[in-house]
């Protein structure tokens, strides 16, 4: 309370609010609960035969409605050269759901690998603070190359190559049907992330997330930035899972919303903002509603 810090930036508030009025980790706790809930629901639907959410994250049925991972569906269409009606219905349903919910919300709110990677990131940061490891980065555009590469491979080989190594599907299947040997590959990936490059799979490679990212560019559900309340402390960017997505708003004042599809709508920035300058909003629709 005694000392007033000031920061440079487009935000209009001069003083940084020193005390958090809202509950810390509110959105993170909600998000993790939902992530665990749905993954446990997958497990329970089979194990206890309650049949609410049957299948795994590649393809499932929620109360009878087909849900299908877009990337898996595209691979199958390319490798088998067959267009199956249920496949198309499942992808359209996913598209509509995530158009309403924000695209990459899949990553941070549903994907079990992302959750493990978040925990891995904490270990990574701890090791880095102790100077025991160095951080490495890759070009974030690799994920588009991977997306194209695996779709191309499906077409060329007539086999869904990526589904063999897909860590999201491997973990999801292991949760529902019991552990599979391929978890060794998933563990290796996690170790790589912890000791070499922070959350590398999600950030640079994962083609599953790319489908959802593309939906995310069109989804109105976005993080909203209130210039009037922001004191430019930049703490949001230190906790953000994909820090560059906040630049256009918080640093450059180009948009009131975080427009990137890469934003996972995880809410970590909302939790950390003492100025309460960030919130979930609906672009285009805020004024109407």
């Amino acid at each position, binding site marked *: 309370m005694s000392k007033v810090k000031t920061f440079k930036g487009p935000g209009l508030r001069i003083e940084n609010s020193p005390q958090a009025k809202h509950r810390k980790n509110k959105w993170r706790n909600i998000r993790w609960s939902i992530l665990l809930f749905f993954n446990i629901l997958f497990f329970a*639907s*089979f194990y206890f035969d309650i049949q609410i959410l*049957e*299948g*795994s994250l*590649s*393809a*499932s*049925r929620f109360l009878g409605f*087909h849900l*299908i*991972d877009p990337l*898996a*569906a595209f691979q*199958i269409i390319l*490798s*088998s050269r*067959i267009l*199956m009606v*249920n*496949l198309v219905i*499942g992808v359209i349903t996913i598209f509509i759901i995530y158009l309403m919910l924000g695209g990459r919300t899949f990553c941070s709110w549903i994907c079990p690998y992302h959750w493990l990677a978040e925990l891995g990131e904490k270990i990574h940061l701890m090791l880095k603070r102790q100077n025991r490891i160095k951080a*490495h*980065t*890759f*070009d974030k555009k*690799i994920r588009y*190359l*991977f997306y194209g*590469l*695996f779709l191309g*491979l499906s077409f*060329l*080989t*007539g*086999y*869904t*190559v*990526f*589904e*063999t190594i897909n860590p999201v*599907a*491997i973990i999801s*299947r292991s949760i*529902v*049907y019991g552990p*599979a*040997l*391929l978890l060794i590959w998933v563990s290796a990936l996690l170790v790589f992330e912890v000791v070499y490059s922070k959350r590398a799979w999600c950030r640079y*490679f994962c083609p599953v997330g790319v489908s959802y990212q593309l939906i995310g560019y069109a989804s109105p559900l976005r993080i909203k930035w209130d210039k009037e309340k922001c004191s430019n402390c930049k703490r949001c960017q230190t906790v953000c899972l994909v820090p560059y997505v906040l630049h256009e708003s918080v640093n450059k004042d180009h948009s009131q919303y975080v427009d990137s599809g890469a934003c996972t709508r995880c809410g970590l920035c909302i939790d950390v903002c003492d100025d309460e300058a960030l919130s979930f909003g609906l672009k285009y629709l805020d004024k109407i509603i």
Partner: protein
Amino acid sequence: MADNNNKKPMNRRRFIKTSTAMIIGGAALAGLGAAPLLRSQTDLLRPPGALDEDLFLASCIKCGQCLQVCPPQVIKLANITQGFAVGSPYITARAGGCILCAGLPCVLACPTGSLNHDLSEGKDAQMGIAVISQPNTCLSIAGKNDIPYRINQLVEDQSDKEKTSQVISDMIKRLTKDEKETFRNQFSLNDIETGTIEKLVSKLENSDLNWLKDFTDSAQFSKIGCRICFDECPIKSEKTISFEEKINSKNAKTEIWPVLQKSCVGCGVCEEKCPTTEASITIIPGKKWQEVQA
């Protein structure tokens, strides 16, 4: 990269570029190289309605919904040890064959059509074909009845009570009226209802089993060779197995061979139920009747 060792540490942008190129190139090579290997496995028995193996592997999304709805729960998902078709469904016939249940729920559950939705009845499935793979051990060919053989197995290992009950109830079904009387008197049973038999099974001793073995060896039905594969076949509308006489060229004896007919769909129930220690009848997955004949 080698010449960089002499200079200052590799600059960041260059590192990103080279590592990116290496990762992409590596992934592409690994994918192209591994794909034929990944597809090479063909001897997995697929659920009913499965497309030809190549197309099946191309279209299966590996979600496991077929497994979830399977009433006898015989479908499993392949692990990496099962020849690289990771996550795709298969059936181990010996552990439990497909019973071709009404409505074929696995086919209906399949979201991609890998299990072809055109299939509506179990008898039209083409999972594979059964063959007498071990004529040397087949009880029918040897002219032996299965009940004494199975009781003998129980003498060696009686740990599976369910199996014991099954053998006893199978035996009772085939006894004549007089034989049933003898059986009841031996164990002082008032009736031969399921509950009574369950109680009997729980306290059977090896001496009892030895008596049962001698008893069944001399029973009326013991003259008839084993017919388990025929009796257990889930296809009842058509004849899948016929028993034909063949003359053994070595000792000129007449043997009764089970001969698989065209209507066999390869469900695997016969392999599951075959009483010999190693199944004498096995399924060749994905093969058609005509191919095996040739």
